């Protein structure tokens, strides 16, 4: 369960956030420049909010009152970047292993698990390739495998379909829905596309100029 209530002063407006999210897909829908990426950055710990409170599964990640600010690397929050940010100088396999190598506790199964992971994303045959040798859809699958390999408690997705053609987009939208059923962790996805929002979102929240309003809640 993610609880976030914070604000961030940007140069032209103030981002005001109030989010509560169980194991659902929350879609944040709004035009570019609405503060969507900044919001994800605040949650992931890549930038600090101006003030407020963030907690994930009852662990406080950020609190301006208590002066808590857990660094990004300890937040257990996975982040799928808009351009995927696959490390260009290492192979697909090394990309997916990157997060596992950072973990102190190294259980013997983790190697096997990440092999299964590559397989379950349908990218095992690509494991010795470099990111520049991949198509858009393959890149996204690899980036998802890399993000989920460290068993995060929350997945953030920043405009995941903007680099894909229509066909791939429809396939990967479906896959993300299936992934969500498998992993049973909250997904928070930002998009400017209305179709993505209505297809994926259990909850859809509109955002414009930093202000938010709830548009849809499944089963309500």
């Amino acid at each position, binding site marked *: 369960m993610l609880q976030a209530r914070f604000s961030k002063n940007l140069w032209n407006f103030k981002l005001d956030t109030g989010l509560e999210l169980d194991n659902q897909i929350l879609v944040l829908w709004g035009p570019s420049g609405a503060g969507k990426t900044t919001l994800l*950055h605040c949650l*992931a*710990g*890549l930038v600090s909010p101006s003030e407020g409170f963030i907690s994930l599964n009852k662990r406080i990640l950020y609190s301006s009152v208590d002066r808590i600010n857990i*660094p*990004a*690397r*300890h*937040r257990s*929050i*996975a*982040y799928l*970047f808009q*351009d995927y*940010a696959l*490390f*260009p*100088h290492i192979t697909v396999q090394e990309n997916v292993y*990157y*997060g596992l190598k*950072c*973990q102190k506790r190294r259980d013997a199964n983790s190697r096997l698990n990440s092999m299964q992971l590559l397989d379950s994303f349908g990218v095992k045959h690509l494991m010795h390739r470099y990111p520049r040798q991949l198509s858009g859809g393959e890149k996204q699958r690899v980036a998802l495998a*890399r*993000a989920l390999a*460290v068993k995060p408690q929350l997945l953030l997705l920043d405009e995941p379909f903007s680099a894909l053609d229509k066909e791939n987009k429809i396939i990967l939208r479906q896959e993300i829905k299936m992934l969500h059923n498998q992993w049973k962790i909250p997904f928070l996805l930002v998009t400017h596309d209305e179709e993505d929002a209505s297809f994926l979102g259990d909850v859809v929240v509109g955002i414009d100029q930093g202000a938010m309003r709830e548009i849809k809640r499944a089963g309500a």
Partner: protein
Amino acid sequence: MTFHVQDWFPVILSVRVAFIVVFMVACTGLPLARFMARRDFYGKDVLEAFITMPLVLPPSVIGYGLLIMIGKNGFMGKYLSSIGISIIFTWWAVVMASTVVAFPLMYQAAKAAFISVDLNYEKAARTLGASELRIFFTITLPLAWPGIVAGLVLAFARALGEFGATLMVAGNIPGQTQTIPLAIYFAVESGDDLTARTLVAIITVFSFLVIWGVNRWSQKQQH
């Protein structure tokens, strides 16, 4: 007249100094370049100009500045001689002069290389659980590497060719501080054409091989 064994001394000294200079500018230039590429603070442009100064100042001015620092009556020189160390007119002075002159070349190349690394890669590594040190060595440094190597080669070449500042702080002592450029200058001045020609040939071939090798290497890196 023939080319004697001891005439190799300038070659050995120059190459040795150039390698030490590359090591020194890498150890100091990389952290500073990384810092300046990612941080903004008040007075950054002043510091930046100060760091780059040796690139535009005449070498004799740098030599003079070093004399003020490490000369017998210089503020650092006085302290050093009180504990029994004298740098001036030793081959360490050669290293020092070349380091100061070569530093901005390394610094500028490395800074440009660090700036060119997409910040999203570092952010992605951060969300995957990597510490800042790990990010630097596994992401930033490898991605900036071609630009950094270019800086190291420039620094090496500059150190190999250093003349003015070296002459002022280390003098021209054969067998102690005489580098290739100094040896060539004084050989020509004294009419020793054979030594001059031999040294010119050596340094030309050597420089060519270094540049050629690095170019080949960097082309391979792109494939």
